[in-house]
């Protein structure tokens, strides 16, 4: 187990370094560094280069960049808000985005599980068909289409919830975005749960448990659902990625002051530093989540880590 965790941690660090390297190269490729924008004499430029260490060997510069990134010193924004450290820009936005994302995953997972279990228990009935239709639509319709739909109906026509994010009423204004984001999670988990439940329900240990005379509820929760849940953890990681992508557009639609809308703004106003910093944060978050999911899965299902060690 230790070996497995160590291996996963090392791969994650390697990935993170690879990403920082890409970002570093991009930084150098980007047009318009602050030093050739302004009218500087050659002496001033040399002095500036010295001050920021731009005349050091590239390896040392890269090393410094890695250290800075990991310390949270992400550089300075040039366009969105002049000369503000990016970490400061992100500080207030990250909790909002993570909050909405968390609601979305939580709500999506719970509803998805319920739908999936109902579909599996009432297999081949009208309930099953309804659950299947809901989940197929949820998987195939992008989250921002849901966001637009919700915003038009519940926000604009019926005025149930504020159409645009209002920080004074954070709870109500995060309901629509998190519903829109949770649709995909819900649908995928519902489909997956249904498949797993059907398989578990048909297994021999369920027959044994049933013939021991266990009551229906105990049978369902402590035998069937528990075993069906294990593989569901694996789908969580890709779901979180989709959530990240979805959140960008959804945040823009509802004008949520989160990280996603900041990234969209940065892309649209060509603020490279912010884009690169946010790419780093997204990647770091993503890698961390993948690591946790993989380790969790290794703990729950020994076949995974044994299989990987045997490679």
């Amino acid at each position, binding site marked *: 187990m230790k070996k497995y965790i160590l291996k996963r941690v090392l*791969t*994650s660090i*390697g*990935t*993170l370094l*690879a*990403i920082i390297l*890409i*970002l570093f190269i*991009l930084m150098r*490729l*980007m047009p318009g560094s602050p030093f050739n924008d302004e009218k500087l004499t050659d002496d001033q430029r040399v002095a500036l280069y010295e001050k920021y260490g731009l005349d050091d060997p590239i390896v040392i510069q890269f090393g410094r960049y890695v250290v800075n990134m990991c310390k949270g010193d992400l550089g300075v924004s040039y366009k969105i808000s002049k000369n503000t450290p990016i970490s400061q820009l992100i500080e207030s936005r990250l909790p909002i985005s993570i909050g909405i994302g968390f609601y979305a995953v939580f709500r999506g997972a719970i509803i998805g599980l319920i739908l999936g279990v109902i579909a599996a228990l009432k297999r081949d009935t009208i309930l099953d068909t309804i659950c299947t239709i809901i989940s*197929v*639509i949820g*998987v*195939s*319709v*992008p989250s*921002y*289409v849901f966001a*637009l739909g919700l915003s*038009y109906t519940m926000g*604009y026509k019926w005025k149930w919830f504020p159409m645009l994010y209002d920080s004074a009423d954070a709870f109500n204004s995060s309901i629509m975005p998190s519903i829109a984001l949770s649709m995909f999670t819900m649908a995928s988990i519902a*489909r*997956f749960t249904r*498949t797993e439940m*059907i*398989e578990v329900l048909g297994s021999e240990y369920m027959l044994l448990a049933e013939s021991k005379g266990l009551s229906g509820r105990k049978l369902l929760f402590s035998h069937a659902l528990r075993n069906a849940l294990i593989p569901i953890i694996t789908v969580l990681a890709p779901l979180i*990625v989709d959530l*990240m*992508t979805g959140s*960008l*557009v959804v945040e*823009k*639609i509802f004008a949520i002051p989160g990280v996603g809308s900041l*990234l*969209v703004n940065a*892309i*649209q106003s*060509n603020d*490279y530093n912010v*884009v*690169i910093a946010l*790419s780093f944060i*997204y*990647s770091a978050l*993503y*890698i961390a989540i*993948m690591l946790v999911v993989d380790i969790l899965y290794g703990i729950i299902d020994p076949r995974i880590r044994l299989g990987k060690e045997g*490679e």
Partner: protein
Amino acid sequence: MSDVTYVPTQEDFKLKNNSEELGLDSNYASQNFWKEVLIRFFHKKSAVVGLILILLIILFAAIGPGMNDYTYEGMIQEEKNLAPRVSWLEGLGIFDGSETVSTSVGDVQVNKYEEGGLTDVYYWFGSDIYGRDLWTRCWEGTRVSLIIAIAAALIDMIIGMSYGLISGFFGGKVDMVMQRILEICNGIPRLVIVTLLLLILKPGMLTIIFALLLTEWVGMSRIARAEMLKLKEQEFVLASRTLGAGSFFIIFKEVLPNIVGPVITQVMFSIPTAIFTEAFLSFVGLGIPVPRCSLGSLISDGYNSFTTHPYQIIPPIIIMALLMLSFNLLGDGLREAFDPKMKEM
């Protein structure tokens, strides 16, 4: 025991030249694999519905833009923001070019065609804020989105499949290195790769296809590798090797035909992902440059006026949702048709 002994003659050792018969198993009636797949596929209604929808959308993407006289970039200043109007539905009171506009005195039913004296002008999906025909633009956009998605999915298939097959076949150190590279690629969020790439390259169709390529091949290579690991221990590979076949012959001529099913299924699933990613990029402003359009850029344009003129955003959204839905249904159907034993997902 009979006492008759058979004396071999020279005839018995002649080459039979029956290479065509050799492939046939005469003991069992041959079951055509593709025929069975087709039967199973058409048995599943949702998959057939998906296929029909896809064919319809492709048909309209092909002929739609030519069905009226407007072009996707032609702007008519006097004919901005017109609601949908279809000649043969007008009499029924729908699609007659009227829309409800909220003003300070409440909701008012307005017909801009009548106000502007455009009695014999018909915009089937309406016109946008620059006076461009939405029907033409929608199908033009569908065409662009489909080309991007299908091109990306096919090239992904080639790259991912080769990568996975090679990695799985050689195993050992080659597999180790290739899988570590893949893990690192997979560790970078798709969003980040695509955004960064489009920042340094000029936005356009090729760039988007390239960005999609960099991110989508991982899934395909996983599937190809898993299939390879399953198949490479089987007898037909051993037989081929015994007959002196080289590695690449075995990979591409022996194993590849056996994994066509999962590969096609995966392609069907990667098309909607590509459509979605393209739409997302357009929405963020990294998509197809104007005046060309894609489904994503149409939705993004419509979004700016979706509370005042909702009809502008509805057609592209419906087309995109239908496309993604049908590709998912088709993928599901194909997966079951190719491998009925596999658990449905």
